[in-house]
């Protein structure tokens, strides 16, 4: 299989894309996993996260076996998980940041 994602801990509900994963393709899951593959509903940029199962709004997002934030919307299995659908449980600013560039939208510089 040409496309691969990495699941770090068996408790994780997201995996990290080790390659660019085009929309509508199937990727192999390596690491601590019971599932062998995942269908990418969205395009997943390399290094970004893909949902390994359906995640309800306000559910924790788990990577490395630890909570890395909460879902700010319902997230479907195989979709891209980033700033637009999850937020930090500590850092209130990150939900004000642009999902693609990460640029702050809550600060004006002139």
């Amino acid at each position, binding site marked *: 299989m040409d496309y691969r994602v*990495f699941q*770090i801990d068996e408790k994780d509900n997201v995996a*990290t*894309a*080790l390659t660019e994963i085009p929309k509508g393709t199937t990727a192999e899951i*390596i690491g601590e996993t019971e599932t062998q593959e995942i269908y990418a509903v969205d395009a997943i*940029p*390399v*290094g*970004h*996260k893909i949902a390994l199962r359906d995640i309800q709004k306000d559910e924790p*997002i788990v*990577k*490395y076996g*630890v*909570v*890395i*934030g909460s879902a700010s919307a319902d997230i479907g299995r195989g979709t891209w*998980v*980033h*700033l637009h659908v*999850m*937020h*930090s*449980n*500590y*850092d*209130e*600013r*990150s939900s004000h*940041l642009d*999902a*693609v*560039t*990460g*640029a702050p939208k809550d600060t004006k510089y002139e």
Partner: protein
Amino acid sequence: MSRTDERKRLEELSWMGYQRKDGRLGIRNRVLVIYTVKCAEFVAQKIVERADHLDVELIGFPGCTDNQYAVNMLISMIRHPNIGAVLAVGLGCEYIQPEWLADIATKEGKLSHWVFIQKEGGTQSTIEKGLAWVEWSLKQLQDTPRAEMRLKDLVIGAECGGSDYTSGLAGNAVVGRFYDKLVDLGGTAIFEEIVEAIGLRDMLVNRGKSEEVRQQLSYTYDKMLDYCKSVRQYSISPGNFAGGLTTIEEKSMGALVKSGSRPIQGVTKVAVPPTKPGLWLLDSTPDPYWMQFGITNPNDNEGLMDLISCGAHIVFLVTGRGSVVGSAVSPCIKITGNHATFERMAEDMEFDASLILTGEMSRDAMADELAVHVAEIASGVLSKSEAMGHKEFYIPYKYQDKNIPPKACEQ
């Protein structure tokens, strides 16, 4: 090779270091030119440029007003085992007196000299005088006594900068395994960036080797979280988001991996070298203070200086996205877990840990390779940043007490 054979191989790696009066051993034998205020920077910088020698380096503090943190930082660089000689250059009216600094160097058994630009008669005459002394000291340093060193004698500092998804999976993971090996051999490993332990309080605190250390870790974590909340700023940047990291908790987990798995011996502060070998957390977050000045880690070079101030002989900068910086005083080794970054920035990136992501190499074998590379750099081989003359430094105004918790907080 079996685990025991491999450990033996690492144990036996040796090279000749430089003996210092306080008993520490250095891996470099450098002349440090220090300016004590911005007004003396140009002259000090010219002395270093005209000396045009790999072992002559510049650091300094720009402020005319006193700052305990900055002075402690300068003193720790003077005492650093990689430094053999010190020239302090002052203008003549600033708070930090070059004479104090030169006296400390003399007490440490190092060659020392100081000048006031106002007394010497201005730019050219001070440069000529300073340069002559630097050239004399370089000759004297050739007679510095040598002694055998091994990995157990090293203090290594690690931080990350420009993190992406590979930092936690490969770069920091390899440093963590190397730290376990270094600690097992009797060496000293320092990790910092407590601001990147957000959400991991229990995981961090439970690694303290005693109740006292667990209390230090709790205090340090809580102080950091109060700080981040009050300034509304967490250690995560646009480049991290673009690289796939979404939250500070996610970045933190990737960062904490570099501390490995051994018990934490204690918390140390900036300019306070650890008192015994093992794994240490360096707290570089400002302490609560009435003037409230200081940003915790304004850039990577500030973090590297903090580690060097604790006596680190070599510093690691783990970077998924790539960086070019080096450091004054101690060689910097840039490690990446991102193969594309390694290829794209081959002249700067020094150690490629990406093979553990593809499964082509185990984390353990990669950590052994890193240990061998560290021994090479310690023996005198130049790191890539050193060879290119990257000798950055950054000393800002900051308030930090040397105690944990600071005395001001106990009231």
